[in-house]
């Protein structure tokens, strides 16, 4: 009986009709249709390898292409000019035998400087966006998943004690600072003691006060985002950079710390909508842990928009760094970046236009291709468009 039943079932077992396709094949099939995005991706990859090559070729004491070599005899040579072999010392002759992008007012090889600058742009873009994305996923995830939990009076007090205490300690006020920290620890201790009382049906006035809900976590995070967005970010960065010692790492960190708001909003919105999705409810109904629900079910479904905004964010970060260097707030000289090549070149825009056009066009191409690539990704990763194709 059992056997005939399963046999009969076997005949009409259902299987998917569509041929099996991996995600990558599916992605490529859709992405291929967007020619501009393909062009963007090609430039994206080219730029990536160029920047890595540039790092290898221009670093060290005696690099293959020396971006810092000053040859006053050969200053302001146009692109593709041959070096003036009679007047150069043997060690000054460029290895390539030609100035591909000409030379600047100090006779430095613009090609070598552009290569060095491309590495700066790449690292600034990726590190700054990396920082921004990490902060964005963390804060956006908290606001989206735990958003409607409220901060209780007890927790607010503890947090206030700890923050003010830490600030006082930093300000060298050891005694009052430590006292506040102990107060914060006391708040946590009271909370632990009250845990039992809070679960009971009838609560004392003290417990009720201690567990009184103030503002929600979502409100805290999102209002902070709003506040950060109020500052024009370029001027915020300028202010911070003016206070800090000029270095490439500070620039990366500052750009990262001032550009996480968009990602936070994306991730929060994504988490809010994912949280209401049936497959997340199913995962909760199965009794999976919060950790597993967040990282196995929600994050993988939220990365697509983050990836898109990150790609476009890299372009923005590169542009911001170029702008800072142009204004002289960026990476300190003699290190070359696209922004300071541009800014050095503007004085000679009529005599030596290549000094402005080469970095200008490089910035244009990279920023444009990152944007096109990002938008192509967005079109493909959007599941609604996916169903249609």
């Amino acid at each position, binding site marked *: 009986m059992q056997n005939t039943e*399963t046999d009969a*079932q*076997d005949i*009409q*077992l*259902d*299987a*998917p*009709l*569509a041929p*099996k*396709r991996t*995600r990558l094949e599916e992605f490529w099939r859709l992405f291929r249709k967007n020619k501009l995005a393909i062009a963007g991706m090609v430039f994206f990859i080219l730029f990536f390898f160029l920047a890595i090559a540039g790092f290898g070729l221009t670093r060290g004491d005696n690099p293959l292409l020396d971006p810092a070599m000053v040859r006053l005899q050969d200053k302001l040579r146009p692109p593709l000019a041959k070096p003036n072999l009679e007047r150069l010392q043997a060690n000054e002759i460029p290895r390539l035998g030609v100035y591909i992008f000409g030379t600047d007012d100090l006779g430095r090889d613009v090609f070598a400087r552009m290569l060095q600058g491309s590495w700066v742009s790449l690292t600034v873009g990726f590190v700054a966006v990396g920082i921004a994305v990490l902060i964005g996923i963390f804060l956006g995830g908290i606001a989206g998943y735990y958003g409607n939990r409220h901060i209780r009076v007890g927790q607010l007090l503890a947090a206030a004690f700890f923050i003010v205490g830490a600030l006082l300690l930093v300000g060298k006020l050891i005694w009052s600072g430590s006292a506040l920290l102990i107060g914060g620890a006391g708040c946590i201790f009271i909370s632990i003691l009250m845990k039992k009382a809070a*679960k009971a049906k009838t609560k004392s006035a003290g417990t009720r006060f201690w567990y009184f809900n103030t*503002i*929600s976590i*979502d*409100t805290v995070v999102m*209002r902070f985002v709003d506040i950060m967005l109020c500052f024009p970010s370029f001027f915020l960065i300028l202010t911070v950079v003016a206070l800090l010692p000029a270095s490439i790492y500070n620039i990366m960190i500052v750009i990262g710390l001032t550009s996480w708001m968009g990602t936070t909003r994306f991730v929060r919105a994504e988490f809010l909508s994912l949280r209401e*999705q*049936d*497959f997340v*409810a*199913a*995962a*909760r*109904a*199965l*009794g*999976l842990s919060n950790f597993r629900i967040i990282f*196995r*079910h929600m994050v*993988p*479904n939220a990365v697509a928009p983050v990836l898109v905004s990150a790609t476009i964010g890299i372009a923005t970060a590169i542009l911001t760094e170029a702008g800072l260097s142009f204004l002289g707030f960026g990476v300190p000289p003699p290190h070359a970046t696209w922004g300071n090549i541009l800014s050095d070149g503007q004085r000679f825009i009529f005599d030596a236009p290549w000094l402005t056009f080469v970095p200008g066009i490089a910035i244009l191409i990279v920023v444009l291709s990152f944007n096109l690539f990002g938008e192509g990704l967005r079109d493909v990763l959007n*599941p609604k468009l*996916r*169903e249609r194709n």
Partner: protein
Amino acid sequence: MNEMGSRNATILQVDNLKKYFPIRRGFFQKITGWVRAVENVSFKIKRGKTLGLVGESGCGKTTVARLILKLLDADEGQILFDAQDITQLDEKEMKPLRKEMQIIFQDPYGSLNPRMTVGQSIAEGLKISGIHNRSKQNQRLEKLLKMVGMSPASSDRFPHEFSGGQRQRIGIARALSVEPALIICDEPVSALDVSIQAQIINLLKDLQSQLELSYLFISHDLNVVGYLCDKVAVMYKGHIMEYAPADALFDHPFHPYTHLLLSAIPDTEHKIDAELNATADEVSNTLNPPSGCSFQERCPLNEERCKHNPIEFEKMGPDHLVRCWKVARNGSY
């Protein structure tokens, strides 16, 4: 699969369940009002039986399902699962009970994680029920897929490769992976074609007799409910309006709202009552509901008394309850 008798005959009992959702506005998200999603819902499900929960869109059916599964916390009321009060349990205490209750969803496109293969989705449930060994998992996976009529080869495919009905079967397989006693079916067929609907409903029926499952079957289609359910609860704006065995409800419906629902089924003797205002303004759980009967705006029998007094259940027969004083007094609609 389960030995009966030793266990409680009532698998789920819900008493006076209430859930309001806050409406928040403004910079500090102040609460400006409440959506009264579930006002007062009580019912019982016997082990191995099916209770139908019927009502139009927005009346709070899904909210009841989420409250029972403790995906939401009830404001008031009590949920007894297998005679155990689960209303106050926190996430940790709830965990061992989670695998006793599962849910099947309305939207077959949203119910499976698009980034996980079918096998991975179902295996999560298998791990929860303590099957960690790979080969044992695969055996069980194959068996579950066959049980719901899917080929075992489906397990390494992604959800987007399946049709709606197939995904619904996969959702059922996932629910079965933890060997639950109760399955809440939240409109499991209303997104499917009629021919596929019949397949899924028959599958649910077969599974019920094979595995002694109990169902809470949520639907807005009385036809389907009549075919599948032993008892029916008719819900309107967060209240149960009529609660009766399925035969009794179809043979002698009392509440005006039940009449309205029945008149929407084609080919029945219940003719559309011209006075029943089927197109009354969209059913929404209004912020400030009128006192008295929640159905009064659309009720053809509406009288002065309906506006003021709270309306209580009246007993119309064995197990037949109606929340309408007027049909109770008249003895019929």
